[in-house]
């Protein structure tokens, strides 16, 4: 497994993926959109053309039946990437293949394999029942007669909307609409499912149930390859086998959540002491050996937790312990704490991490 972290602004350094077994392969994908200009600017320079880069040389691969997360802030390029995968937008450069089929040249066949779950509830027909919505799309997916009817009933059962009867979708809760959107996407037995922020309109409990459904039903039973775009780190942690961190159209890192967390330079440590020495800590900060020091409140038993970061790794950490002991600071416990994923992403995006490549 290759994990590569690049600082913000640096070109993507993701190695080319050559695994032919990959279900989805994205290679050097680039997309720019024209920027809407103001009236005055247009009048002054009518022929000028400004473009904003949405994706810049994005490269990664997703294995069969893998749950792959695309993490990034709003505007990172996740939705654009999904729309290119779904052949709704044409790329400017690079190639994207789904099961070996090019999404531009073989778009019709790709649409038979891949199903984007369009998270917009308005894309449902609100004046129809769930069954009627599914019947319509079953027909558009070439599922006729009894076959289509069976698939519709099956999916309504799986997604837990079988008891909605003739109730119009407009009267559904957001959670039920999300389930219907999933059911609609699953109609054609897709090999790849694209989920773009599927839990954004769900309450925390609904979101948790939905994640359980995705893990147990979609991946475990349906054996779908799933790409999920989200800006919720906990969602990625809970669901994804691997994640890619996308920032302003550039892939900053790809790997499992644990790999990313354990390889980040400058790990965080917790130190428990009965007498924190401010002077000793300040001295180490001044030397650049430690940083981001937070001295907590003293607990009932007199222990104080000091949070600190040691950029130099375990060897420097032992030097820090020795230095603090030399300053007569009694240390009862010293432990490495993995960075929470959310913070990790924030750091990668902010470009505070160092480039790291490890096979």
């Amino acid at each position: 497994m290759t994990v590569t972290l690049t600082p913000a602004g640096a070109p993507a350094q993701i190695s080319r993926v050559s695994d032919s077994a990959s279900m989805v392969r994205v290679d050097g994908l680039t997309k720019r959109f024209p920027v809407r200009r103001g009236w005055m600017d247009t009048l002054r320079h009518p022929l000028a053309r400004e473009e904003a880069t949405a994706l810049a040389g994005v490269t990664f691969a997703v294995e069969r039946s893998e749950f792959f997360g695309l993490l990034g802030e709003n505007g990172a390029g996740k939705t654009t990437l999904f729309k290119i995968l779904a052949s709704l937008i044409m790329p400017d450069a690079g190639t994207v293949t789904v099961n070996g089929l090019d999404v531009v040249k073989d778009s019709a066949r790709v649409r038979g394999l891949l199903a984007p779950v369009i998270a917009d509830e308005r894309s449902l027909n609100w004046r129809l029942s769930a069954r009627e919505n599914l019947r319509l799309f079953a027909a558009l997916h070439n599922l006729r007669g009894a076959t289509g009817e069976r698939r519709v009933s099956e999916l309504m059962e799986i997604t837990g909307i079988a008891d909605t009867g003739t109730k119009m979708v407009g009267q559904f809760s957001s959670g039920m609409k999300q389930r219907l959107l999933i059911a609609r996407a699953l109609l054609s037995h897709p090999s790849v499912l694209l989920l773009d922020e599927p839990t954004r309109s769900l309450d925390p409990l609904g979101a948790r149930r939905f994640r359980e459904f995705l893990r147990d039903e979609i991946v475990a039973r349906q054996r779908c390859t799933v790409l999920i775009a989200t800006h919720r780190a906990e969602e990625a942690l809970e669901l994804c086998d691997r994640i890619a961190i996308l920032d302003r159209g550039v892939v900053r890192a790809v790997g499992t959540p644990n790999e990313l967390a354990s390889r980040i330079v400058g790990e965080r440590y917790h130190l428990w002491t009965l007498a924190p020495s401010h002077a000793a800590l300040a001295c180490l900060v001044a030397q650049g050996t430690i940083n981001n020091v937070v001295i907590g409140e003293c607990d009932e038993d007199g222990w104080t937790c000091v949070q600190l970061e040691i950029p130099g790794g375990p060897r420097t950490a032992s030097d820090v312990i020795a230095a603090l002991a030399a300053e007569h600071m009694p240390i009862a416990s010293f432990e490495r704490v993995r960075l929470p994923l959310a913070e990790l992403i924030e750091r990668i995006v902010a470009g505070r991490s160092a480039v790291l490549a490890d096979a």
Partner: protein
Amino acid sequence: MHKLFALVRASWLVGASYRMAIITSFGSLIVTVVPVFYIARAMQPMMGKVVQGQGGDFFGFVLVGMVAFMFIGIAVGTLPGIISGSVSSGTLEAYLTTPSSLPTVLAGLMSYDFLWSFARAVVLVVTGAVLGAHIAWSKSLLAIGILALIVLSYLPFGILGASLMLWFRTTGPLPKAVIGLSGFLGGVYYPTHVIPSWLHSVSSAIPLTYGLRALRRVMLEGKPLSAVASDLGILTLFIVGLCTLSVLAFSRALHDAKRSGSLAQY
């Protein structure tokens, strides 16, 4: 075909969920046709000779004009409306992610409006017949064929409007200009030979002029196909030329929308 049926069925179910709208849709036809009958009857002594070559009955003349005009409104306005509505709601994107082709989806979505208009046209014509309009029922199939040609000759304007909708998010004045010009100069409420001579050249560039003339001769006078062949030939030329132009424009607009990513941005 089953895809078209599914789309028509879904549109019908949506339409049927607005029960009041259905009732008023048919009710308004009765309210419209009755005053037209009385006005036409009052004007018959003056207009009878003017419409001599197209049935001779002014009420029947206007009735057929109203039916054709209703269809060109649908042909010109429906497709841009569907594009506009489905782009803003995201349904177009949802349809485009299925293996069904865009022309199939759009044809299915439009079909309901045409079928609905057909039902309304039948009510209109039957009401007119009850009120005294002379209809050559034996030529119904031929009349429906001519009506289909009229629709096909105006559909390209709808496709052009849809292209403009994809490019600029507005059709601009195109639909109103086409419908307005056709209404005034296409012979809907009066025959084209009564308009000023300097406008005749404009009138002859309007497909409705030929379509309506043929439709009236068949529906009101019971003429055979051979009697209206020349008008239908010209109408066919319009269809071929305009369809080619509009399909090219739409393909380009769709390509540009996919390039710019604007298919789901309203």
